[in-house]
């Protein structure tokens, strides 16, 4: 909210009323505001002054001029320093060059060489010293930095050179430099390097305390220019640039820009864009009127202009007459003239030049007639918050406003929220800032405004307490993390959700089929326990409703299937049958079913798990009965469903294995079958079924395979198979296709066995593949040993090995 404000003119004291009326209405002055010629006095006066400017020494209350050598030497550039008092025209030679008659000698540690400085010169109000850098001495000078101090007395000055830092602006001439008192830094902008040519647009800051340079920008907003004005505005803490040329000898420009050393680097230069610019000019004669916070320039005869940052206004002060800014006899025109403002005597002084013919500069001055008091401005501004009203409740974006006034001028008002800056300082009345209260927490807050004047005086307004109460319309977000959508659940489970909110989640209420499931959970992690057995099997909807403090709600849902099962499976062992006798490795099989599904069947022997649970039908496992003792054992099949219901089926079996190292009885009944594994010996066995048909055909030494019946106890031979075995012996008689061997005495074999051989018999170790076998040889014979051939006991040989 804006308030009607008094015109700026009536906010200032009456002492400056006349001056400000000039600024506002550009009305010509008649009192004390006219150019007057100042006759030079003093024992030593400067000669051939040009390509420079004057700075004001606030410590010794004198204008300083670094120009020319006194005494009429041939040098056209100078490093001698003079002081000038406009009230009496007195020149004081503060320091005398030791090389006044030498043209462009090199620098020394105790003084800079002769040079054009133009505006690359400034007065450091903190250290009370004059600084210069680079410039030109028949060509651009390389970077250097000299400081000059003095006591005000003649011959009291001295120069000091600072070491060149690694980073510096380099050689440069016709740039402009100014000391910024508010940040204790020197600003350097523009100029050109090397020979006269295109100007630069770079901006540098120099920190005297550390002797360091920082390049702020290389192609800065004001653009390339040289021979321009650069003035520090004590009132705003900013720097004004104006005028110059884009390149040497180019068209003069105006283009006012402001540099704020406290602004972000990218936005330090801003175009002032005043309604009306001052006339374009280069090498403009200028001075800064600190008493009134304005820049003064004298670009045209009869027209002194002022510029005020706060109002961004160029004003023609309407002071008629005056010297020519480019007087006759000045070969370089305005470059040969310069100005300065004497703060303590309130003089704007113009220094003309008589040209190369020599002689002191012609001096003219405008006395504004207001020598300052000391201190110049002890009066702080006044400030008060005008909006919002104390105790008000705020929402959304509001305007915070303040009224501020000062005996001189208010530089700006900084608003603060709870002690922290709220936006940037407002330098223009009406003072206000926009505040988006949603960026603050709901609740009580304190607003203040701090007004600042050009002298650095500050006043903080009375605080205003307000209450922020923004309506929260953003609902929370919520999702159910467990169980998953479409999951099948049973028993008691945990339902979990995550929720978030722009302000905060007040709580999450779980619901089952629309009815609350437990109490609202007010703290993350949001969970509740659900006993699913309390509801019917089938589909159910779980919801999580997240709520914030403003009452916004969001619901997330999942659908789950409850499947609680109290019905146990059915199970039965299908093999082996109960009561049977088993041996060796058998397969145990079971069938199982369940109203929902069988999760698995675990087999057990005498209560001990047999292998892993079989989770797929057909349910089987393998049991090596040799791992159990002979005798009765209980086989179990335990079927389990997903709900954990179990059923058990059992059968009892008798294990009857043939012990590996012991004997047991075995019966042979009428069903026992006798056979011979004849294989390749078939050509030599005319009737195997005749020769080995019953138990009477069994004899010691035969090799038999016997297969017993698992379901009988004691075992009954189901099959008796005559197989090849090996007999060792000594050949007693040998003839064609047969020979007789005599096994060693005391063995299981008969004392004499006829061995029958044929084409299928292999002979190993003999002279040939067919033998011959000879009496007395020791042999091993492998073959079928028959008891009951037509020729009695015969060993039908498949192989004969001659033994050593």
């Amino acid at each position: 909210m804006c308030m009607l404000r008094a015109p700026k003119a009536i906010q200032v004291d009456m002492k400056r009323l006349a001056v400000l009326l000039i600024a506002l209405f550009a009305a010509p002055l008649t009192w004390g505001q006219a150019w007057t010629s100042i006759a030079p006095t003093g024992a030593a006066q400067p000669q051939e002054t040009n390509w420079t400017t004057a700075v004001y020494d606030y410590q010794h209350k004198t204008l300083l001029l670094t120009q020319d050598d006194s005494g009429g030497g041939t040098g056209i550039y100078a490093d001698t320093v003079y002081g000038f008092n406009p009230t009496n025209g007195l020149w004081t030679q503060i320091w005398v060059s030791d090389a006044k008659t030498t043209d462009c000698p090199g620098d020394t540690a105790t003084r800079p060489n002769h040079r054009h400085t133009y505006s690359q010169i400034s007065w450091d109000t903190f250290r009370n010293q004059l600084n210069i850098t680079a410039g030109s001495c028949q060509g651009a000078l390389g970077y250097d930095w000299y400081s000059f101090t003095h006591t005000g007395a003649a011959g009291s000055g001295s120069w000091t050179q600072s070491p060149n830092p690694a980073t510096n602006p380099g050689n440069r001439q016709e740039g402009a430099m100014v000391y910024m008192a508010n940040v204790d830094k020197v600003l350097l902008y523009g100029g050109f390097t090397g020979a006269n040519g295109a100007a630069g647009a770079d901006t540098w800051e120099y920190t005297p305390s550390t002797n360091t340079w920082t390049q702020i920008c290389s192609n800065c907003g004001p653009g390339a220019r040289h021979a321009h004005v650069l003035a520090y505005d004590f009132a705003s803490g900013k720097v004004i640039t104006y005028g110059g040329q884009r390149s040497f000898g180019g068209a003069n420009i105006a283009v006012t820009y402001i540099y704020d050393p406290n602004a972000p680097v990218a936005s330090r230069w801003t175009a002032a864009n005043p309604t009306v610019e001052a006339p374009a000019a280069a090498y403009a004669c200028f001075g800064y009127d600190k008493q009134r916070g304005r820049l003064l320039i004298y670009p045209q005869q009869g027209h002194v202009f002022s510029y005020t940052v706060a109002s961004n206004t160029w004003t023609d002060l309407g002071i008629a007459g005056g010297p020519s800014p480019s007087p006759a006899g000045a070969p370089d025109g305005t470059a040969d003239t310069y100005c300065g403002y004497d703060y303590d005597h309130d003089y704007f002084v113009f220094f003309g030049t008589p040209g190369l013919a020599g002689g002191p500069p012609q001096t003219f001055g405008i006395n504004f007639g207001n020598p300052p008091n000391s201190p110049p401005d002890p009066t702080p501004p006044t400030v008060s918050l005008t909006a919002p009203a104390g105790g008000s409740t705020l929402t959304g974006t509001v305007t915070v406003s303040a009224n501020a006034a000062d005996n001189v001028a208010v530089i700006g008002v900084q608003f603060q929220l709870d002690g922290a800056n709220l936006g940037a300082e407002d330098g223009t009345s009406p003072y206000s800032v926009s505040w988006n209260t949603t960026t603050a927490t709901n609740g009580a807050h304190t607003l203040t405004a701090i007004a600042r004047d050009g002298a650095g005086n500050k006043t903080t307004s009375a605080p205003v307490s307000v209450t922020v109460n923004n309506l929260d319309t953003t609902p929370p977000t919520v999702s159910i993390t467990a169980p998953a959508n479409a999951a099948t659940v049973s028993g008691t489970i945990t339902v979990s959700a995550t929720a978030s909110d722009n302000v905060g989640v007040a709580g999450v209420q779980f619901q089952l089929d629309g009815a609350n499931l437990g109490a609202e959970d007010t703290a993350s992690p949001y969970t509740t326990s659900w006993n699913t057995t309390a509801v019917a099997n089938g589909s159910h909807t779980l919801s999580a409703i997240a709520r914030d403090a403003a009452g916004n709600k969001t619901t997330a849902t999942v659908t789950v299937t409850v499947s609680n099962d109290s019905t146990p499976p059915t199970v039965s062992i299908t093999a082996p049958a109960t009561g049977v006798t088993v041996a060796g490795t058998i397969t145990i099989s079971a069938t199982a079913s369940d109203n929902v599904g069988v999760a698995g069947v675990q087999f057990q022997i005498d209560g001990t798990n047999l292998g892993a649970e079989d989770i797929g039908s057909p349910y089987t496992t393998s049991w090596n009965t040799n791992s159990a003792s002979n005798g009765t054992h209980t086989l179990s099949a335990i079927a389990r469903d997903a709900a954990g219901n179990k059923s058990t089926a059992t059968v009892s079996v008798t294990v009857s294995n043939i012990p590996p190292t012991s004997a047991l009885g075995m019966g042979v009944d009428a069903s026992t079958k006798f056979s011979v594994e004849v294989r390749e010996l078939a050509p030599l066995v005319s009737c195997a079924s005749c020769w080995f048909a019953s138990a009477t055909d069994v004899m010691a030494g035969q090799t038999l395979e016997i297969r017993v019946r698992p379901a009988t106890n004691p075992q009954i031979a189901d099959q008796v198979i005559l197989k090849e075995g090996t007999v060792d012996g000594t050949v007693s008689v040998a003839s064609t296709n047969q020979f007789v061997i005599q096994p060693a005495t005391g063995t299981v074999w008969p004392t004499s066995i006829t061995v029958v051989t044929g084409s299928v018999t292999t002979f190993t170790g003999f002279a040939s593949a067919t033998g011959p076998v000879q009496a007395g040889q020791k042999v091993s014979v492998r073959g079928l040993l028959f008891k009951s051939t037509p020729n009695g006991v015969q060993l039908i040989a498949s192989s004969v090995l001659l033994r050593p």
Partner: protein
Amino acid sequence: MGKTKWFSGTILLAMAIVLSGCGTTGSNTTTPPPPPPPGSSNLTVFATDAAADNVLAFKVDVTSISVTDSSGKSTTLTTTPQTLELRHLQLAPTVALQAANLPSGQYNSISVTLANPELAVFSAGTVSQKVPTLSSSTVSIPLTNFSLPSGGTQGLALDFDLNSSISTNASGGFVVSPVIHPVAVSSSSAGMELVDSVGQISAMPSNPAKSFDYQLMSGAATARVVTDANTVFDGGITSFANLQVGQYVEVDGQFQSDGTFLAKYVELSASNPGLRVQGVVAAVSTTTTGTSLSLVVQD
């Protein structure tokens, strides 16, 4: 050990069997080694037996087998225990192990570690069970001019000389000091083939065609058996198509240069090996109630 039960009853014939058999100690199923790459070699170790007149069964556990090359580097081929009944291996070798990817080159010895020997000895008309003393559990057998070919398979038979290995001590106890003769085996070696070797089919690979892997009942080795048109199928089966994983089969097969065995016979054995025994008849007696016999179980 060594119990003998005699059976008599209403049945026509009765038998009494003295059993001194071997069992399966290893149940691990392995896969026959693939052909080795160049620089490596596969080794097939056979076990066989020489004559032993009065010993009807000799069972021993083989707990490890290792070889040592010419540089002295020892390589353990297996530590899977297997139980061998050696007596029935006379003229009927079996496979003790198949080792893959051994460095090719010369090998100087093979070591066999034995344990738990048991004997069934026929003496004075009866069979007795004996637990002999094993004089040395590890037997190092020198190899002469024995090399493993690069990229090939070599066979090696360990011929247990039971007659030379078994003796009695002063107290009449049996002592086994294993005497084992190494015999290099190739595909052309006479008599060096699987005979009546029972095992369970563990896999039926597609390559080579009509082949199957079967794990020998002795426990450690898995052999790959290849059938062809000359293979005779018996025991109720008539062709390769009748075979399936899990069946117990009895194989006669010739060792081949690639480490497989070309089957002469594949006979379907008893579906439950626990109900099958094989051995030597030690005695037969006939009484009025029937005929009985003693069988020394070997396999």
